[in-house]
């Protein structure tokens, strides 16, 4: 009897240990096809002592070799493991990060590090739209979005402030300054990997994930 229990326990441990070995990582990079345009400048026309004089638009950030920042890559159909809190800060009259990825119903803390009036105005159709003021005394606003959607966020007080909250029920990552991304812990299988960029649109590629790393590279063209 005892030996049977030990056997079952060992088997369970073995299965548990084996599980991560079957998961892989999807990684790669996103590039802009063609030449990069000069970064757009945004004039700051109010609250200059806090916000500064000029901002660089994050709508299209292209690095060396056409690497594209702020693109969101999603492994569709895979299970997300996001947990804990996500944080969206407003610092120097810029949303930080410019694009926040969150899971459905994940708690998002919206901070105001500037100490001046901002407002969080979301544009969404599947989730309830919100437009909440965040004056100096309100340090944190708790937000939660129930349904997967790409939600535009802006601040009506400071017209140039624009950001995005990508609510995704699949694992997702935002490309860094070098255009690279990496999504770990994707169970083995065949997936569609989608990239979305706010001004360049979408692209989908198929990828097979086994143990180890699956590479995908995207090239987005200007519309």
């Amino acid at each position, binding site marked *: 009897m005892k030996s049977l229990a030990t056997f079952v326990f060992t088997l369970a441990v073995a299965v548990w240990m084996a599980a991560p070995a079957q998961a892989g990582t999807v990684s790669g990079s996103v590039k802009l096809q063609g030449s990069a345009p000069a970064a757009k400048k945004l004039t700051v026309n*109010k609250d200059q002592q806090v916000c500064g004089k000029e901002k660089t638009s994050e709508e299209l950030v292209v690095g060396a070799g056409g690497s594209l920042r702020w693109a969101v890559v999603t492994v569709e159909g895979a299970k997300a493991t996001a947990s804990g809190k996500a944080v969206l800060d407003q610092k120097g009259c810029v949303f930080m990060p410019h694009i926040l990825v969150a899971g459905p119903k994940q708690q998002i803390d919206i901070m105001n590090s500037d100490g001046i009036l901002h407002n*969080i105005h979301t544009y969404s159709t599947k989730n309830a739209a919100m437009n909440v003021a965040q004056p100096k005394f309100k340090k944190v606003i708790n937000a939660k979005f129930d349904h997967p959607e790409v939600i535009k966020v802006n601040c009506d007080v400071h017209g140039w402030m624009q950001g995005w909250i990508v609510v995704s029920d699949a694992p997702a990552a935002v490309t860094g300054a070098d255009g690279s991304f990496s999504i770990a812990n994707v169970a083995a299988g065949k997936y569609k990997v989608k990239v979305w960029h706010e001004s360049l649109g979408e692209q989908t590629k198929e990828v097979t994930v086994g143990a180890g790393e699956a590479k995908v590279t995207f090239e987005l063209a200007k519309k």
Partner: protein
Amino acid sequence: MQAPDPPRRSRWRWLPGWATIPIERRSYRRVFFFCSGLLTVATLWTVIDESLVRRPWKNFQAEFNRLERAKARAELQEAQKKFAEERRAEVQQLAASLRQAEQALQGAPYTAAVAALDRASLELEDITQERQFAKSELDEAYYFYEKALKERGQAGARAEKARVDRLEKFIAALDPKIEAATRRRDQGKEAVERFTKPVNELRDKIEQARSEIHRLEAYLGAIDKRQLEIRQVVLREADRNKFEEPVMRVDRCETCHLAIEKPGFEQAKQPFRTHPMREALLGLHPTNQFGCTTCHQGQGHALGVKEAHGEVEFWETPLLRGRFVEAGCRKCHAQEHQLNVVLTTTDGLSLAQRMDKPVKMPTPAGDGQAAAPKEMKISLLPLATRLTMGRELFERLGCHGCHAAKGFEDLEKVGPDLTRIKAKVSPEWIVRWLKDPKAYLPHGRMPNFGFSDGEVRAVAAYLLASSQPWRPPETSHGGGSAERGKQLFDSLGCRACHSLREVDRKEPERAQQQAEREQRQVIRRDFAPDLSRVATKVDPHWLYAWIRNPKGYNLRTAMPNLRLSEQEARDLVAFLMSLASPAAVPALAAEPASPDLVKQGEAIIGKRGCFGCHAIKGFEKAQRIAPELSNFANKRLRELFFGHAFQIKETWLDWTVNKLRNPQIYATEQVAQIMPNFRLSDEEIGALVLLLKSFKDEKVAPRLVKALSEGEQAIVEGRRLVRRYNCTGCHILEGGGGEVLAFYPEKAFGPPPLHLGPPPLLSEGEKVQADWLFSFLKGPSPIRPWLTVRMPTFQLTDEETSRLVQYFLALSDMPLKLESPESMTMAAETKRAAEVLVSKDYFNCFTCHVQGQKKPEGPPEGWAPDLVLAKTRLRPEWIARWLQNPQLVQPGTKMPSFFPGGPSDILGGNDQRQITALTEYLMTLPGGAQPTAVARRRR
């Protein structure tokens, strides 16, 4: 040998051999058998015919009972399944407890308690009875005592007195015993109840869990017991006859249409379908008051399918099928131009879904905002929309100019005034226009009269000859920039009424916007002319004068004054004149108009009724030229002239549809048809035919006719003005309109574009002070400095203005009074608190809001309305509601919500107190203009 008798003509020759049978031996049994057989068959046939063949409704009722039973059974099964899934465990537990409790009833303690209770009850009963007997005895003793007292005096009655006293004492002694016995009995009862109460409670709970099942079982039982019977509504007074006498109406429609008032059969096949929009329509028109045929027509008392629908010969009012049912609305709702229903519900969305109508609800906001209120008002769900479209078309196309029709009497002429036409347009243009109006304005409403070249010249000659001199003010129109003019045209709001389709064709984006704008229109006819080729039509000098002051040329025009500066007007003229070059058409100019030609023109105008739509000199008193339509729906076939159009089926509907499609179709060599061709689309024809179907001379019982309340009357009249001045070209009103918003796209995707186009007028009456609204409509002043679109001055009369104000008040359910709220005062402490609240470190209101001369930082498109205006413009109750949750008042607004979650260190952190303080602060904020004199003058 006797010669045989000549063969007799026998009566029975058809029964061979019968005559030879001796009379006493003849048998009639076959005859009797045959006849009785015949009688039996006839009886059977009678019974069958009477009960089934002539009672088709019985089959319908039986079928419906089957249908309803099946539905109830399915529901019962569902309920049982649900019960099994959700409540079985619970009920089993309850049943176990019940068994336990019931077991206690078997035990000795319970038996003892019952026995004790019985004993105590018996004891109490005994003592009570004893007391009753003693009381009777006392009554008797007292009688004898009184008798003795009367007969023998005090002394003689001593013995009787003693008896009375004894009995009284005896009774007094019984009372505490009774009390004690009662107490014992109550205790006994309690003791017993301690055992029985849980049993009863458990039984109740088990029943409760099964209540739905029981309800459905009872329902099924009721269906089984149902008799097949005629169901009817008797209306004592439904109509009036020619002598104003009430006419009774009996509607038996529900004998077959059994689910009309039953929800749950929306998808069933006819005749078992639930009435569409049952709650709204039957809620307003209960069948026991309105019957069915009052709206639907048909032969209400008939019970056969064809007969009941009135689709038999000689029945004059057959069922209004399909959307023609909307024609039935007008007999009681003649005054209202559009019909809608106001619905209040606790679950707005589900109601909207039940009614298959998309109703946009303000989205309940996320974190940090108050949830949407439970009770939601979906105001103004439009009903009978095709009828509304028909009415709108009838008015818009100016049908009333030539045809009289009840309900369309006091309407303006729809075409422009032609009494000063010479100053406005070129003679060549008149000729081209009259020849083919659609060639110049494909979306216009001027119909084609099919004039010959000669006729065209004659009409033009008369118009020019009768034209009065008009001298525009002496200002030069030259020196404008077409480029600036284009910008002005696109941004001022000209496109709310005018379009530029040919120009837009070169700009796909604009064309797209134009298409989107047309999507928003109910009537796909331009309210004002397309200006793509206006340069080929008008004189630039006239154009300049016109756009600067339209009423200066035509007092009755709907074109408002946009308060253009001289430069703006010059730029616009330059732009419009640059769009096309005046094409020279060799036509009239070369030929000097002869008096004969002018006379001929006058005759044509008189015959074709041009003055029905246009003011023309010399035709001020002319009468309408075409037949009255007030009773058109009742026209008999023999009254309709089909001419040689043999291909057309001889029905009212076919005649009408084809007449509208091509008015010339019934013309013959003998009979000319003078109605012009409006080039109506099929959709437009459908709407107009529906309207014509409603033109009926009917006397409805006065109790059925919709009596408008003061507020409803205000809405009806307001809507007329809204149509006249095309307010919905810019503003979203009553859930529709806002056409021009198509040209002010929001760059972001998502909620409606709010801050760049004209503001939507949602609950305006509740928002602004009536006095302010009055003065604003009389002389608009900018409220939102960042808007390029400009609210024009409509030069409304005082009466029109107060009507509009009342319209807005009525839409918001406000009392129809032009009153300002009383001026507010503020406690010093509250004021200090409010000042802190609006300050930079708190709500920082003035980072966006203008405050009189103090403008916020940044570009104007980031600004918000001047808060100094609030005290003269806004109602304090609205400010409070707005501050509480702006998104609920105006979904999509830029104004963020600050509550709940006001700062904890102000006014005790109480949101309501903070909102009140801010409201009072705004209502007392100094600065700005005082209410103008116009406002005080009111009506």
